[in-house]
């Protein structure tokens, strides 16, 4: 795998983790504001 492809996969993993966290937050309205 080329270096750029590895980086892109890391970039994708970062965003997917981030979006999963937002998904969880949106499912629980009580948790929206800490």
């Amino acid at each position, binding site marked *: 795998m080329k*270096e*750029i492809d*590895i*980086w*892109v*996969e*890391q*970039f*994708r*993993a*970062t*965003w*997917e*983790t*981030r*979006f*999963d*966290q*937002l*998904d*969880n*937050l*949106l*499912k629980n*309205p009580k*948790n*929206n*504001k*800490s």
Partner: protein
Amino acid sequence: MTKRETVFSKDLANRKLTVVRSFDAPLERVWSAWSESEILDQWWAPHPYKAVTKTMDFREGGFWLYNMMGPTGDGSWCKESYQKINPEELIINAVSFCDEDGNINMEFPTMHWKKEFSENESETTVTIEITYDKEADMEMILQMGFKEGFTAGLDNLEQYLLQ
């Protein structure tokens, strides 16, 4: 509920990355999650990092200054400078590395982000375009990500696989 897919595309010739994701939530709530620092702090940093807001002034000409803190307490200060905001529709901003007072570190390239929001029935879609001024800027970010982010990426993957 099934896990949502993140659609990701790269256009290296035009120095552009695009990320598209839909959420099972109304536009108003998704917009709040992208525009209110107390909500952003809860999800913006990918585990095991944590986003800690110092200041947030969400208006055109304003900025969000936050620290992306690592598990050992080390951190990187980031500044999102808002250039255009159409409520519940569009955010255009520049993203830079900076110090804790928001002074931009010119040694690192600035990224340009366009975030578009659209609602279809009960679903909200966010489209993010990230562009770089120069090919060299993208290469620098690439090298930073490869050298420093790859381990974090593997950690994220591990957490994901544990779910």
